[in-house]
């Protein structure tokens, strides 16, 4: 058991878990033929069946049931603040499974030349009363019951009177911002706190204008919009839900990382020394001291950014995203790629941090400008 716990503690470190989940997400939601083939061989699509769902939930329940026997796991999972996130894990997975199951069923029907299941629904008419209002009313009652019982059983997680000289350790944002807080580990606050949230909102707003795929509308389907589903799932599940989960359960005092079966020791220390790209470029590669001139010093970083945002989109338009470019046209394509590159920037920065201890690509602390 102890061995299993330390194994779990080891694999839940973001350095291990994040890359694994990244690959796993693309395998579960294969954007291209290659991933699709692997998915087929590993029979991963079987998860989107009744048996697969049963397996998934049994596995999750078993893990939690086992985990609750451990005092450290119990302490963190049953904390009144964190209980909703446990609910979130189950709910997100349930609806994911539910929609993907329908999508696969529809895909099968479409392949056979039939109409998706939703088409049958829309032909049938349902009366607002009683069919809609009645079930809404029942849901309302059941939700009230849930809220009442919850409020009786779990006390409100109040804290001590606010004290300017004592900050709580760890200081955590509200759960829905934990994804952003996690980004703070890798990015300068103005990026993680201002630019990225804005980009997320703009990106979500832009989806209807960027997506010109006429298929797969009004019904669940995966095959008709593989790329779209795949990209969205990576962004939503990995860069948002997963980061919230990590922030809630696995970030302890001093924002240190703790495995699910690890005691939250306030004194835990991690060696954290990071360097900027300019230092690697000049001092490690060129064996040269840092130039005095700021622009000259940060030239490598600017070059990388220029390549990333300026050179990469046209290159992709000609190679990997050729079809996309053709269908979207230049303007929409460039907006799409810039948004995508921004989103991909987060995992890239994470890898750079883990592998090369890169702090900033461009570091001009003189003007509070760090990327």
């Amino acid at each position, binding site marked *: 058991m102890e061995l299993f716990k330390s194994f779990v503690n080891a694999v839940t470190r973001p350095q291990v878990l994040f890359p694994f989940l990244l690959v796993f997400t693309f395998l579960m939601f294969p954007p291209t033929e290659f991933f699709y083939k692997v998915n087929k061989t590993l029979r991963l699509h079987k998860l989107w069946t009744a048996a697969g769902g049963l397996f998934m939930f049994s596995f999750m329940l078993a893990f939690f049931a086992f985990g609750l026997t451990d005092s450290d796991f119990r302490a963190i999972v049953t904390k009144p603040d964190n209980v909703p996130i446990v609910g979130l894990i189950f709910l997100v997975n349930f609806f994911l499974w539910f929609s993907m199951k329908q999508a696969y069923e529809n895909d099968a029907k479409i392949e056979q030349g039939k109409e998706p299941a939703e088409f049958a629904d829309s032909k049938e008419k349902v009366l607002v009363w009683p*069919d809609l209002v*009645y079930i809404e009313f029942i849901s309302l009652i059941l939700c009230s019951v849930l809220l009442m*019982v919850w409020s009786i059983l779990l006390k409100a997680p109040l*804290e001590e009177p606010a004290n*300017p000289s004592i900050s709580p350790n760890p200081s955590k944002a509200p759960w829905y911002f934990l994804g952003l807080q996690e980004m703070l580990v890798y990015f300068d606050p103005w990026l993680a706190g201002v630019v990225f949230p804005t980009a997320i909102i703009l990106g979500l707003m832009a989806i209807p204008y960027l997506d010109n795929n006429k298929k797969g509308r009004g019904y669940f389907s995966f095959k008709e919009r593989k790329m779209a589903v795949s990209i969205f799932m990576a962004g939503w599940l990995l860069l948002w839900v997963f980061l919230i989960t990590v922030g809630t359960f696995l970030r302890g005092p001093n924002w240190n990382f703790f495995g699910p079966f690890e005691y939250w020791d306030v004194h835990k220390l991690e060696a954290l020394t990071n360097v900027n790209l300019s230092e690697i470029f000049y001092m490690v590669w060129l064996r040269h001291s840092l130039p005095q001139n700021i622009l000259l010093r940060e030239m490598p970083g600017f070059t990388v950014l220029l390549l990333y945002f300026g050179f990469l989109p046209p290159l992709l338009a000609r190679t990997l995203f050729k079809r996309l470019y053709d269908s979207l046209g230049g303007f929409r394509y460039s907006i799409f790629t810039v948004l995508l590159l921004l989103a991909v920037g987060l995992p890239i920065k994470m890898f750079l941090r883990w592998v090369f201890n890169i702090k900033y690509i461009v570091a001009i602390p003189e003007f509070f400008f760090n990327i």
Partner: protein
Amino acid sequence: MTLPDERHYKSSALNLIFSVSSLLLLLSLGWLFLSDYLRQWKQHQTEFRSLEIEKTKLEYEAARKGLEGDEEYQTLLQKIGQARKDYEARCSGFESEKKEVEQLSVRHNLAEQEHKFAKSELDAARFRYESAKAENARNLEAAEAEFLQVERQVLDLKTELETTGEELNKKKEIISQCGEMLRNLEREERQMASRREILERKLKTIDPSAMPIASRLADKVRDLPVIDFANPSLKIKQVVLRDITDNVNFMQVPKVDRCVTCHLGITDPDYRDAPQPYRTHPNLELYLGKKSPHPIEEFGCTVCHAGRGRGTNFSSAAHFPSSEEQKKEWEKKHQWSPMERWEEPMLPLQYVESGCFKCHSTQVTIREANRLNLGIHLVEKAGCFNCHLLKPYEGWPKSGPTLKKLESKLTKDWAYKWIENPRSFRHNTWMPSFFNQSNTSDPDSKKRTEQEIHAIVHYLFGTSEPFEMDPIPASGDPEKGKELVASLGCLGCHQIQSSPLEEKATRDLLRRQHGPNLIGLGSKTTKIWLTHWLKDPSRYHKDSRMPNLRLTDQEAADISEYLIADKNEAFEKRPIPALDEKVIDDILTGFLTKMETRAQAERKLAAMDLNEKLNRTGERLINHYGCYACHDIKGFEHANPVGTELTEEGSKPVHRLDFGLIHLDHTNFAWFEQKLRDPRIFDRGKVRPPDEKLKMPNFYFTDEEVDALVTALMGFVDTTSVKNKKIPRTARNLQLEAGQKIVHLFNCQACHILEGEGGAIQPTIKEWLMTYSGRSEAEADAVTTSFSPPNLIGEGKKVHSKWLFEFLEEPSVIRPWLKVRMPTFGFGESELNTLVKYFNALDDEEFPFAKEPDTTLTPEEVLSAQRLFSKEYLDCAQCHIVGDQLPGGSPDRWAPNFALAKKRLKPEWIVEWLKNPQELLPGTKMPTYFDPDAFEDSGPPDILDGDENEQIRVLRDYLLTLSE
């Protein structure tokens, strides 16, 4: 097209789900109400109510029985019965009068009503008349006529009212006169039975079975859920304190204590034996009572006890157990768990006195807070304030002796062994141990320790200044020395105790340990040094608190001969490890590389010889360990102390205390306790370089001492929340506090009893009486107080300030039979004045000037006084010394010299003294000549017409002439 009766879902199934979920909603709603309604404190209040009923019933029964058994009351009842019969017999014949009274009263009431109406009409008419007059209106005449008419009417009605009233009273009196006796008797009965009546009335309001049905119902209804917002019988009780605040970081809010919601009998002396939480406070005279200095309405509970005043259940009030057993019991009985996120849990019982210190911090001793007083005394004795800044102790002298002239007193070997382990030389020394502690006991640390001590000793001796010593008498007599030590009073501050005694830590013990235990001095110092030290301690150490006992050369030599004879063989035999230059190099390199590079340090090291290396290392080490905080050391005159500031240590948030890898309750008192037991414990399991290890030395405190010190530490808190309740800074309080500080510093209470405390020397006086003057234990007991330094109770009332000033500066002999000597402390002017003011403030005397009564006598009065003084009457000279004339008999019966009286005593005091010496100085030998219980007949009738006051006056005035 769907038909209206078509359904997507099955209606019956939906109905079923709906009914089940509605039921669930109802149930959870009920649960919600219940969980909100059922509170622990309501159960307590109900329980207390039944306890109260039971108690009241018992008391009521007792009162009733008492009355039944009371003959007086029974005869009264009989009398009432008789009177009632009498009344009925005699006063039943007033039927016609009664009828008349009724008729009259109707008439009277009607007249009264009419009068009222007429009066208001008159006011209105007056207004009309006045305004008509002012405006000179046409209807002026009519208005005037109306006014005059109404006025007449009112007058008539008034007359009528008065006549009917008079008539009515007359008639009533006739009737009432008849029943007057009965009424008087009944009033008497009510007075006698008042207690029973009160209890009966109380029972009716609290006991459902004694209530009328309507009240019983109302009592139940008003406690029902929802309705109970109005005026429930079970409700939260609280004390709101405007003067005492809770600190919520951004502001101070009035403190609210809801403890009385459950602790219902806390201020009621009737619940002394009731179970908790209803029990009475154990000390109502001092706390909570209406007449106590800390009434509950003004002080509440949590300002002393800490905890969470707003909490209304066992855990949320932040109760905290005082022992492991209690913790287990509470967990079982009250499902107790520590209150999370609350910095101030209730003080466990053993530390509860720390609450006093908040407001009483300026007082040197706090009455009745014995543990806290002991803690504060320990802080002073152990000298915590030397290393740790404690604002109240700023300016106190250092606790240890000077090390500036070490060479004349000690040898290097002795110093080495002493620093290494002070307790191996003196088992109860207050010098703490720095070395061989729990974090420095591994072989590497031991090796380092040895060389560290070598370096420190080297530095101390290297910087030692010369101390000139004159030749001393060739030989002293140790036997005489022994007797001198036993009789002079040395044992007030010093012990001579070769092996540890299992003595409980008390303040008296601390007073006797004021100076070091005088054992093994032969192994420590030389006879010549000791003689010089005894002769004049301030010559060796200017700021020494060891006083000068005005010894002759021979006396000093005798005493040192005696003290030097005791040697500590085991200590002398202990080997000293050899100097190891390599280790010294390592230590010094460690220090040097803090500021410079390794290469620089090595270059520096290479240029030094061993002597310099040792000096530099010793200096750095003394700086590291902070030796200079307690001792004067050359080169460290302006160094800052090494410890954390403790002025508000009790308010420090718990997370700022480093618990290391030790598992403890996360409370500050648990941490303090561990720290004091083993100052290095929080290093356990840590891997640290030598100079980063914890370095607080170990005092080897006993359990009681730890408890007392933790109590004191918990009292050192931020006091903004009680700033309105602190001891006021009046001139008198300031004088008292300044005096008490000197009393503490110079250990006056070791010899004298002051403010009801002290006299620690007395057991040694008794021993001296038994050993040197051949008395049996019982005899010695009887005269110990006469041979001890005087009790200083009422000293301010007793002696002239000027005399006191001069005496404290240069003591003179008052009681020649005493062997103990009042030492010369070498007080400066300001200290002397402080002491004089202190004694005056203690007795509320006017200072510095006071009116002197006229003490001149007529020749006749002198004669009367002389007769009183003579053998025939009071025979004062039988005990008192008069000038050069000593009284006969043994010296333990002697009394002070009258020749000193004029200069020394305040005349008013002499009068009081002659009237009742036992009241001024309980246990004094002075006989009570004028019996205070029968004062008028106590004096001889044949002098001054037997007027006692006159006799006392002339006697006093006569005594004041005896110095001439």
